């Protein structure tokens, strides 16, 4: 098959699977379709990448050179109508206004004939970045869908009050994947906007899955913020429609943008910032944590938020060296700093994962804004490693939550003795997020090196943010690790907990864990074959090596990759626990952490993590970050107009 046809097949396949899924309500049949469909999507993604090979990039149009015609405006009308209808049903005002405004823009462009006819041969653009995204979406996405089979079964068993709509749920997961594929291969901006809006609406539906007042509120929050970003995207299209080739992403981002293009670039960056949940738009992602865990895994690791940073990385060469770019970078880096401060005060493990997600995305945004080949390299590396590790973490915390009925970090006490194998997976995920030699830490290290050559106070500020932000990361992950690695003697009931984890969950989470390890082992290969060449092509820079891995570093990396899970398994095999015999000032401390107290009483030992009470206030930090990043964002849009 030729590259264009296989790409179309890739976009169409999940959409077809989604459509088929919406027709079947019977559980066994649905599960089979999810598994087979998921595997097909993964195979198709791999086939696409294999077909693409080592090329720098390719452009193509619709099959048979069909023109887009009125397709986009019709789809746009459908999406707008849907938003208006569902908003009326739930009596919301803001969402329909934003959606109608965007539709009005599209209609104006169409009716007034302002939209120049696109080059039918350049509607789609695939390059190495697209391929990275296709692999991330196409390999991780289906695993999450398959994992959801086991998770949703346990979910509805434990929450019988929630009306099951699993048919819609699975259908949406696949449609989401289709929209993401479409988004990362689009070159014509109005086309990309349509896929962009489809992901917004799918995420809205997935977040509001349980249809309680609470989740509906969060779903509308996500919808509002993302529609606002979409509106920015729309206005950018209006501004660009008068420029020759302005709506062609590849031409637009070919190099540093001319002054006249900057306002549009700024608005596109604004859209990317809303989608990737940067401050001041972080609250939609936090609210989305109330959705079922596979939703969180899909939205916040491999798709949705990654669409935002994908667009920003695309824009990176255009923003390079401009004030707009610097300000975009500061939105990301300040977000990284402030959400890390919030994360150290957070007890809800899922929310810690959410803040960590926003922080990692902030790093990518920071890299994209500066726009150098090194930092683009860092950004893509973080995309890959973050997607793997974070999807694993979200799925694992979902599995734990369904078995232990808690998301609170404090209640994950002695997880290792309750769920040793799940703990090992958890440890791989956490290690992947921050421990020195894994991909993200490597990326952070490279980022610090690259910020070193940013001149003036901006460079110093960036390095300060990196230093403090990274340290905070160690703190909140360290706390979680202590809780997991601690151990106590378990009861017979507790010993049986892990047996109730479904095989769907074992297989998918195991595969992701292997993925984290494999990606770490292959970091040099990934860098030299894919990410490095991408960065050089995107910035038209001279060939060079990004990651000079000397054997010592490789040794440290591989040993650390396997350290924690290995140790965990080791202790799981070793039955000689003596947890009762800790030092308690001479008091007897026995099984179940009960201690003798004064006057013959007994006291239960409760150990609570430090949350830096009295030093860091989570709420205050969130508000401060929101205000600060909001100000920088406003300055960014203003600067794009003022500084030409």
């Amino acid at each position, binding site marked *: 098959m030729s590259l264009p046809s296989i790409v179309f097949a890739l976009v169409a396949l999940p959409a077809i699977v989604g459509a088929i899924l919406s027709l079947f309500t019977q559980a066994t049949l649905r599960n089979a379709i999810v598994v087979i469909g998921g595997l097909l999507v993964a195979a198709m993604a791999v086939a696409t990448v294999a077909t693409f090979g080592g090329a720098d990039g390719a452009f193509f149009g619709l099959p048979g050179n069909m023109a887009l015609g009125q397709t986009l405006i019709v789809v746009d009308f459908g999406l707008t109508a849907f938003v208006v209808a569902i908003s009326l049903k739930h009596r919301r005002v803001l969402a329909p206004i934003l959606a109608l405004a965007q539709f009005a823009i599209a209609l104006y462009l169409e009716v007034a004939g302002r939209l120049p006819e696109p080059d039918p041969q350049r509607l789609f653009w695939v390059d190495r970045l697209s391929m990275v995204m296709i692999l991330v979406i196409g390999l991780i996405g289906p695993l999450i869908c398959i994992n959801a089979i086991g998770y949703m079964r346990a979910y509805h068993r434990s929450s019988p009050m929630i009306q099951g709509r699993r048919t819609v749920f699975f259908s949406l997961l696949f449609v989401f994947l289709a929209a993401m594929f479409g988004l990362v291969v689009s070159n014509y901006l109005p086309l990309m906007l349509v896929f962009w809006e489809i992901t917004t609406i799918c995420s809205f539906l997935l977040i509001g899955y349980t249809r309680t007042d609470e989740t509906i509120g969060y779903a509308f929050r996500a919808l509002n913020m993302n529609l606002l970003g979409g509106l920015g995207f729309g206005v950018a299209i209006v501004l660009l429609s008068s420029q020759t080739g302005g709506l062609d992403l590849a031409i637009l981002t070919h190099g540093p943008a001319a002054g006249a293009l900057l306002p549009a670039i700024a608005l596109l960056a604004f859209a990317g910032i809303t989608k990737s949940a940067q401050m001041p738009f972080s609250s939609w992602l936090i609210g989305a944590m109330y959705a079922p865990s596979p939703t969180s895994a899909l939205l916040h690791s491999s798709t949705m938020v990654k669409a935002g940073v994908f667009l920003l990385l695309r824009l990176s060469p255009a923003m390079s060296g401009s004030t707009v770019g610097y300000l975009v970078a500061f939105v990301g880096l300040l977000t990284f700093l402030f959400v890390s401060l919030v994360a150290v005060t957070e007890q809800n493990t899922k929310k810690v994962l959410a803040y960590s997600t926003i922080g990692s995305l902030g790093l990518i945004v920071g890299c994209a804004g500066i726009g150098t080949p090194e930092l683009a390299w860092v950004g893509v590396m973080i995309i890959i490693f973050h997607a793997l590790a974070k999807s694993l973490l979200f799925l694992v915390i979902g599995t734990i939550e369904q078995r232990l009925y808690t998301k609170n970090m404090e209640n994950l006490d002695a997880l290792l003795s309750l769920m040793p194998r799940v703990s090992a997976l958890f440890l791989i995920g956490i290690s992947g997020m921050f421990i*020195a030699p894994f991909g993200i830490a490597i990326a952070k290290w490279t980022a610090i090196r690259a910020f070193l050559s940013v001149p003036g106070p901006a460079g110093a500020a960036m390095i300060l943010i990196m230093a403090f932000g990274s340290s905070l990361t160690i703190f909140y992950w360290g706390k979680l690790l202590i809780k997991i690695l601690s151990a106590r003697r378990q009861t017979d009931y507790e010993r049986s907990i892990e047996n109730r984890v479904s095989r769907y969950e074992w297989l998918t989470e195991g595969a992701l864990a292997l993925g984290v390890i494999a990606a770490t082992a292959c970091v040099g290969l990934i860098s030299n074959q894919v990410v490095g060449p991408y960065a050089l092509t995107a910035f038209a820079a001279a060939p060079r090596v990004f990651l000079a891995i000397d054997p010592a*570093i490789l040794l440290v990396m591989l040993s650390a990759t396997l350290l924690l899970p290995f140790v965990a398994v080791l202790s799981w095999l070793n039955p000689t626990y003596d947890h009762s015999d800790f030092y308690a000032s001479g008091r007897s401390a026995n099984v179940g952490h009960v201690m003798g107290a004064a006057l013959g009483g007994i006291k239960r030992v409760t150990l609570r993590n430090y949350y830096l009470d009295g030093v860091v206030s989570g709420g205050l930090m969130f508000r401060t970050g929101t205000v600060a990043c909001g100000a920088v964002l406003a300055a960014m849009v203003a600067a794009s107009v003022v500084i030409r």
Partner: protein
Amino acid sequence: MTPAIYALLFVLLAPVFGGLLAGIDRIVSARMQGRVGPPLLQPFYDVGKLLQKRTRQINPIAEPLLIAHLGYMAATGALLLGGTDLIFTVFVYALAALLLVLAAGSANSPFSFAGAERELVVLLASEPFFILMMVAVCKVTAASTFGGVLASSQLVAVQLPGVLLAFVVVATIKLRKSPFDISISHHPHQELVSGLTSDMSGRLLAYVELAHWYESALLCAFMVLLFNWSVPLGLLAFAVAYALEVLVDNATSRIKWQLVLRSTWAATLLLCGGNLLALFVMGR
């Protein structure tokens, strides 16, 4: 000599250096208190005895974690002298420090847990400084390895007075000295103050002590980075700084963790951050 030999020498000789330093420290402290103090080789006797003693473990994870702590601490120094990127070395150093926290926390007992959390706080307090210090050293010398910094014609400490001052403040944490020794102290202590090791016995404690010797040698190597003109100069500077630490240790009392965090972050931000800002503004 090649960097690989320096790395090997560090692995072999750092414990000797660290152990002797601890011995001198104990004698000097004793003299400051009007006592004679133990023999110079006392730290070696202690570790020898701990290795001979029976070890009782609460959680079998602790031992591999502590071995890894020791291994990574040695590896940090070996990587540093072996010519690995300075900033990467700091990342490995943080991993080594974190492993000690995890080993203590795994006991899941009140004092160990409190010790682990407090150690995590001091890790948070000290980590930004080490990243910033390495960045500043790289910025000044335009080198990225230990050998490169030593070969530079710039005397780093002259360009980085703020970093040097902040180093003396933050090294107090890593050297386990008052007023920042809130999780473990050089002095015989118990319960909350030495929570970190409360449930470690025998060889586990010996690993912790050995790792600390490596850490002292590592900090000395960091000081050599700042006084890069000659190694003896760096050693002298470290000796002066260490003597100051011992004096402060004997003259001050322990403070609360909140104050530890605030004071070290303030020092890092003002002294180190200010220094870095000046470097970037002056475009060096």
